[in-house]
């Protein structure tokens, strides 16, 4: 009796310690991401990024954090106070909860949920939307309401392809365990097996974390920050934190599911994992530094007309592959076929204006020709 | 000071080389607007017609629809305060014919003038601006709310008697 109690106590303590470790680890990661984003974006735009605080501006995120925490926390008069306060907490808790089961190496994980890792990720990832909607509504601001509704529409739409890709990976690997999934990728990373899955997951992931070109729900030039418009100080910092944790989570999942996780020669596995994750994150920042933003209807059309059908197609492909026990390159071929379909569809729908422009230029040229004659 | 042969509204004969434009406008208008007192002059190389308020609207429609003038664009509308009356200048421009015609209209401050915003949409904001600055009411204009000034501004700042360095608390 006493023994079981003490083992239970030990379990609780070890879980608590690992949670605290995770929390501080993520905080450090977020600080590094803030610095990296400012620096990378600055460099992409021919700026220098932060330079003043510490060497290369390395202490800038700490200065930011201190400033944000010390700032006055303003609650609007008409705001629903409870909801206003609870919303950021929901967002950040859901962001942290995701991390409980994500392994960094087979050894470093808080609690590897063996039979339901992917399932847990799919389930917990959705909670954050609630927080965003509540934040928008609770702050009694019309921009906030619009932003919250946009967030709900966008995140729920892109959750479907995301989960479908998770399911297809699970079908191929016959497991929900992330460690097993990574180990199964040791000869061939899944990016070669499921290129379509990789693209779908990455694009849907960008939309999930609201990164350009899908930063619609807080588009600062249209709805001035959306759900976050009334938040300031520490509350805003919490949203900021969760945004970066989510970005990091999506990058990590991309690496774990498609890029072979921690496997790699020479270097220790955790280093390989971090290298891959930061590469994916830099790609996200690079996209942010290049592209404009889509409009909400174009975004939804892209989700429901392109992403969702393709993700279903992917699930069917994987099922066929597993059922007939085909060689792995068969799946690649099928997946590539899907990618070509993506290309065609994007070409048809997204570049329709581009073709029209070409047509217009042709007409203009002929007009000028006739004028010259 | 350089001496200058200026073309004021009273003094037409000083610009003989531009007479053909005026005479053309004159013949065109005098056949259409018989019995209406029209004065022709030049505003800086622009043939200008001074029109009484009551026939302003008809004249504008004529200048817009007439093929020789084809003034599809209301280029500018300016109010000038001459203390006892206000003069409104309409600068009409035709893109097809590349010609400019000016229309002037003298208005007493207590009378109203018909709007041209139903002829040219551009007149909408110009008239609101003139209403702001000079207090002239435009008949038939739907929305005469202040455009440049704020609601509750007192006085008409375009007028000459509006104090220059006075300050209104908003």
């Amino acid at each position, binding site marked *: 009796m006493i023994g079981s109690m003490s083992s239970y106590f030990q379990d609780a303590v070890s879980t608590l310690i690992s949670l605290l470790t995770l929390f501080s680890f993520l905080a450090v990661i977020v600080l590094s991401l803030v610095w990296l984003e400012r620096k990378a974006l600055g460099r992409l735009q*021919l*700026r220098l990024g932060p330079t003043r605080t510490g060497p290369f501006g390395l202490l800038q995120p700490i200065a930011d954090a201190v400033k944000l925490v010390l700032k006055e926390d303003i609650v609007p008069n008409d705001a629903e106070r409870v909801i206003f306060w609870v919303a950021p907490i929901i967002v950040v808790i859901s962001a942290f909860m995701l991390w409980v089961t994500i392994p960094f190496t087979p050894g470093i994980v808080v609690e590897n949920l063996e039979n339901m890792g992917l399932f847990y990720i799919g389930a917990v990832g959705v909670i954050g939307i609630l927080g965003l909607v509540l934040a928008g509504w609770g702050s009694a601001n019309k921009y906030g309401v619009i932003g919250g509704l946009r967030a709900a529409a966008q995140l729920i739409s892109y959750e479907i392809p995301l989960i479908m890709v998770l399911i297809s990976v699970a079908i191929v690997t016959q497991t929900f365990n992330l460690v097993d999934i990574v180990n199964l990728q040791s000869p061939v990373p899944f990016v070669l097996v499921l290129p379509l899955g990789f693209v779908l997951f990455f694009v849907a992931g960008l939309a999930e974390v609201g990164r350009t070109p899908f930063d619609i729900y807080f588009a600062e030039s249209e709805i001035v920050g959306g759900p976050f418009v009334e938040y300031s100080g520490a509350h805003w910092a919490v949203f900021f934190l969760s945004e970066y944790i989510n970005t990091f989570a999506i990058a990590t999942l991309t690496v774990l599911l498609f890029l072979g996780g921690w496997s790699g020669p020479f270097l220790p596995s955790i280093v390989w994992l971090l290298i891959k994750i930061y590469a994916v994150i830099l790609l996200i920042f690079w996209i942010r530094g290049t*592209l404009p933003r889509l409009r909400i209807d174009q975004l939804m059309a892209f989700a429901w007309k392109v992403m969702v059908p393709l993700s279903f197609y992917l699930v069917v492909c994987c099922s066929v592959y597993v059922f007939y026990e085909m060689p792995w390159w068969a799946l690649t071929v099928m997946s590539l076929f899907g990618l070509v379909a993506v290309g065609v569809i994007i070409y048809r729908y997204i*570049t329709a204006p*581009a073709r029209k422009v070409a047509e217009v230029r042709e007409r203009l040229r002929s007009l000028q020709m006739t004028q010259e004659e | 000071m350089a001496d200058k042969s200026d073309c004021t509204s009273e003094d037409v004969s000083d610009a003989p080389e531009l007479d053909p434009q005026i005479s053309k406008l004159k013949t065109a208008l005098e056949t259409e607007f018989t019995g209406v007192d029209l004065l022709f002059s030049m505003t800086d190389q622009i043939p200008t017609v001074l029109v009484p308020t009551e026939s302003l609207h008809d004249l504008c429609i004529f200048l817009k629809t007439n093929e020789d003038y084809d003034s599809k664009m209301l280029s500018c509308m300016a109010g000038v305060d001459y203390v006892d009356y206000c003069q409104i200048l309409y600068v009409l421009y035709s893109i097809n014919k590349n010609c400019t015609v000016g229309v002037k209209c003298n208005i007493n401050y207590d009378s109203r003038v018909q709007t041209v915003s139903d002829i040219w949409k551009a007149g909408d904001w110009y008239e609101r601006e003139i209403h702001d600055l000079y207090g002239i009411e435009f008949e038939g204009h739907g929305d005469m709310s202040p455009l440049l000034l704020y609601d509750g501004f007192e006085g008409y700042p375009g007028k000459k008697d509006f104090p220059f360095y006075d300050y209104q608390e908003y």
Partner: protein
Amino acid sequence: MLSTVKGMIQTLSSTFRGLRRPVTKLYPENPTVLQNRFMGFPGLTWDKNVDEPFCTGCMVCIRNCPTQCMTATMKDNPKFADESSKRRKIVDEFEINLNRCILCGICVDVCNFDAIVMTHEHEESGISRDGSRMDLSGLLEIGGRYQTQTGWQPSSKD
């Protein structure tokens, strides 16, 4: 899609270009080079031959200032009495409200005595609105700094 990819390649190449030759310059260490004709705040010049300001307080600049940012008074020049100076009158007080000044340079154009110049000073700051009024000594100081920096000489027109 092609144009998107092109754009991404462009941002990447500009990154590497920027790494080699950054466009941004750090400000206090690396201030922007001022062009010779740069118009900063107006200052009054000092006649080193006679050791007095060029300004006689004739009020031409004050009348021509579009924003009425200056005031000045004149007095009898004590040096005229002992014949060390040709100036019958000399400036007594001169004040420019730098908050009102729009740095248009009209005062320099109209001045007949080369007494006022647009200096290269542009980094003034103060903690109150009143702090941006500059009196005669301050104006002579920034004018004198301009003179030594650029080797300004009065034009020979008077």
